[in-house]
């Protein structure tokens, strides 16, 4: 059961558009598969995707989207996972390199950053799924988006340094509890999302830190070793992921 390349592109755009419009993953998959079934049958009889949808792909996607409810639960879970994930990662890094502390600016700033990040990610995905771009423009949009993400982080970090806000310094016991909670969160979230990606990424970031500390190198040498190890680890992991993805041809889920 295969559809033409044009139909496949349309189905992928529809999938991306519905997910980034906050529709339920299961319902999105259902309608995309139903249309795939229809397109397969129709193409056997020589019809093409334009005859079938009748409207422009953009109008058709919007029409389908209007009939599907907005999934607040998914939005809420994605948001919680992003916020706690970022906080957990920051905390775990702090705990390993000495002791955790959080300022009020960080506690308020990072969740706001995540909301802005998620909203702009959804807007970007909706925009790109509705329009056909050449590769050059697509890369440009992605780099602008990457720049936005980095600027947001820099903004929170500079605000944190510029303004004195109350700081919560964790006690030794507090550090242990925080470490257990963050590790628990990573395991829980990975089980929920049925993916190893979070745990592996965290391990790739954390293991060099532990390794470097046990080696008692000079500060400069340890910083360089750490960066090289993290970079190499991430590169290897994403290369492996990419190879696996290419070999089994499934949908790439955003986020």
């Amino acid at each position, binding site marked *: 059961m295969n559809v033409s390349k044009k139909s496949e592109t349309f189905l992928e755009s529809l999938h991306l558009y519905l997910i980034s419009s906050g529709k339920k993953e299961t319902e999105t998959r259902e309608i995309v*598969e139903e249309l795939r*079934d229809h397109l397969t049958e129709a193409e056997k009889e020589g019809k093409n995707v334009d*005859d079938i949808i009748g*409207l422009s792909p953009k109008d058709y996607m919007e*029409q*389908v989207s*209007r*009939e599907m409810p907005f999934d607040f639960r998914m939005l809420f879970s994605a948001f919680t996972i992003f916020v706690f994930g970022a906080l957990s990662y920051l905390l775990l890094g702090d705990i390993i390199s000495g002791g955790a502390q959080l300022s009020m600016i960080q506690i308020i700033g990072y969740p706001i950053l995540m909301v802005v990040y998620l909203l702009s990610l959804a807007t970007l995905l909706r925009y790109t799924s509705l329009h056909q771009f050449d590769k050059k423009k697509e890369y440009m949009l992605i780099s602008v988006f990457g720049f936005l993400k980095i600027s947001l982080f820099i903004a929170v970090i500079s605000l944190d340094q510029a303004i004195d806000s109350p700081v919560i310094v964790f006690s030794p016991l507090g550090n242990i509890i925080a470490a257990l909670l963050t590790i628990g969160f990573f395991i829980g979230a990975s089980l929920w999302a049925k993916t190893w990606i979070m745990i592996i990424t965290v391990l790739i970031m954390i293991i060099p830190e532990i390794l470097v500390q046990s080696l008692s190198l000079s500060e400069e040498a340890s910083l360089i070793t750490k960066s090289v190890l993290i970079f190499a680890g991430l590169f290897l992991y994403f290369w492996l992921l990419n190879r696996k993805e290419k070999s089994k041809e499934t949908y790439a889920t955003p986020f």
Partner: protein
Amino acid sequence: MQYSYESGETMSSSQILKGILEGCLLSIIAKGETYGYEMIEKLDHYGFTMVKEGSIYPLLLRMKKQGLVETSQKQLPSGGPKRKYYTITEHGRSELETFKGNWEAISTSVTKLMREEFHSECIKEE
């Protein structure tokens, strides 16, 4: 019979067609469990060639949301991915009865009116 329009809403021919199409889909599903492509073939068979194939899916989504139909995924005997089948619910059946009643009234009136129109044109021509 009285029709009321919400302010600002214009009833375009495509909206009329959508309402009629929804009634026809209900009637097709009421005849027995079926799936999207088969519905299109049946519609075609009755002469609904003006219906764009893809346009039934937003309608089917809405009908499911309103509880008029239910769906189930079934494995095809030929293997491959599952296919989505539709069946009518009790609520769907009573909605279909309402549609039938409305349609009969509308179509009788429209036919009568159009016939007079046709006659008067014939008389004028004579």
